[in-house]
């Protein structure tokens, strides 16, 4: 492999590496840091330019006074903290152990192939989380059970619609409506119905992008941070639409 081919191969790989991290919920400064660390392990100088849907990797060949740029599309996917940890570790491993590009590629594929949590396990944990939330807000045992069932139903619908590649906003509206509609059964029981309603949709709150957005802004990636927060605002609006649908149906029970 000559020098030019090597630079192209590195730029392509770094683009894939950075794009995967951006897509799976890593905050911007970490993506840039990891990518630069990885390029440092190859003794190559690199600059990363990031937007919401695309990123550009520019690899500098100082001897030939040449820059090779790769424009990569960011594929958005569910948040995968396991990849956040393993890809960050990969960059350190490459730097400390002077791994070759082929070795790094192999380890990258291994990291991505690592088994994820089973969807049923996530569904049960998320439902238990909302049940606990209900307790923390002062809900009684009946409200907690209703919230568990409502969350399980809403979350299952979200998992199915995500699998069917439905529009993300529609998925949020439908899941919020389903969860809150089931939670609205608490209006007909002697229980803390308002708390049950309030907590039933909280599993949908985009907490990770919200915090990532704030971190990006604090760390100076203002454009990315604001973009993330606008996306979050849209998702919260979708939750409001779903919840609003239920509240309109049951509004006579509210007063």
């Amino acid at each position, binding site marked *: 492999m000559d020098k030019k081919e090597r630079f192209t191969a590195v730029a392509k790989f770094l683009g894939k590496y950075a794009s995967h991290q951006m897509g799976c919920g890593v905050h911007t400064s970490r993506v840039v840091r990891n990518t630069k660390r990885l390029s440092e392990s190859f003794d190559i100088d690199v600059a990363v330019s990031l937007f919401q849907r695309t990123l550009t990797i520019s690899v500098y060949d100082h001897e030939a006074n040449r820059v090779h740029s790769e424009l990569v599309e960011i594929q958005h996917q569910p948040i995968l903290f396991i990849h956040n940890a393993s890809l960050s570790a990969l960059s350190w*491993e490459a730097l400390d152990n002077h791994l070759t590009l082929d070795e790094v590629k192999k380890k990258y594929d291994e990291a991505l192939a690592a088994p994820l949590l089973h969807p049923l396990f996530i569904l049960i944990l998320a439902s238990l989380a909302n049940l606990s939330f209900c307790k923390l807000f002062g809900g009684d045992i009946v409200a907690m059970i209703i919230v568990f069932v409502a969350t399980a139903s809403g979350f299952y619908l979200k998992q199915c619609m995500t699998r069917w590649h439905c529009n993300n906003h529609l998925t949020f509206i439908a899941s919020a409506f389903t969860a809150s509609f089931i939670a609205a059964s608490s209006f007909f029981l002697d229980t803390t119905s308002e708390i049950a309603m309030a907590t039933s949709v909280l599993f949908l709150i985009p907490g990770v992008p919200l915090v990532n957005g*704030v971190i990006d802004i604090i760390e100076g990636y203002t454009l990315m941070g604001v973009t993330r927060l606008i996306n979050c605002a849209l998702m919260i609006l979708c939750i409001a639409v779903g919840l609003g649908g239920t509240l309109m149906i049951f509004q006579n029970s509210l007063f």
Partner: protein
Amino acid sequence: MLLIDGFFAAIAGCGFGAISNPPRRAFLYIAILAAIGHALRTLLMGTFAFDIATASLCAGILIGFTSLPLGRISYCPATVLYIPALLPMIPGKFAYNCIFSMILFVQNINDEIVSAYYMEKFFANFMVTCSVIFLLAVGATFPVFVFPNKAYRMTRHQKK
């Protein structure tokens, strides 16, 4: 009371964390962070009469600082541990009241007094929700700025 609070916060933290697919080894540390953070906020609000925003900032800072050693132990970036731990402290009830007030504002748009009342409620809840989320994130991120070298080397294994 605080133990029960911490216990349920730990379950909530793990549950919301699971949605983000963390490494399995991270769950224990997420639970610890969520429990101590929420328990501190409850203590500050209940015993020392702190407001929710200040108490959330203190809890965020505690979570942020504790996430540094725990991240080192678990070889996970601090964000992988502290973001799920912050989620149980997102003020869901205020967010709900915000949406609820917005709907009632729209429905009563022709009645000036009632619509003004719901508009005021909407903004009050909106301000609390936004400021709490912002302060939680700032508090948890603050230690990363204090100890950048430690925070950025969490996933680094022993150099060969």
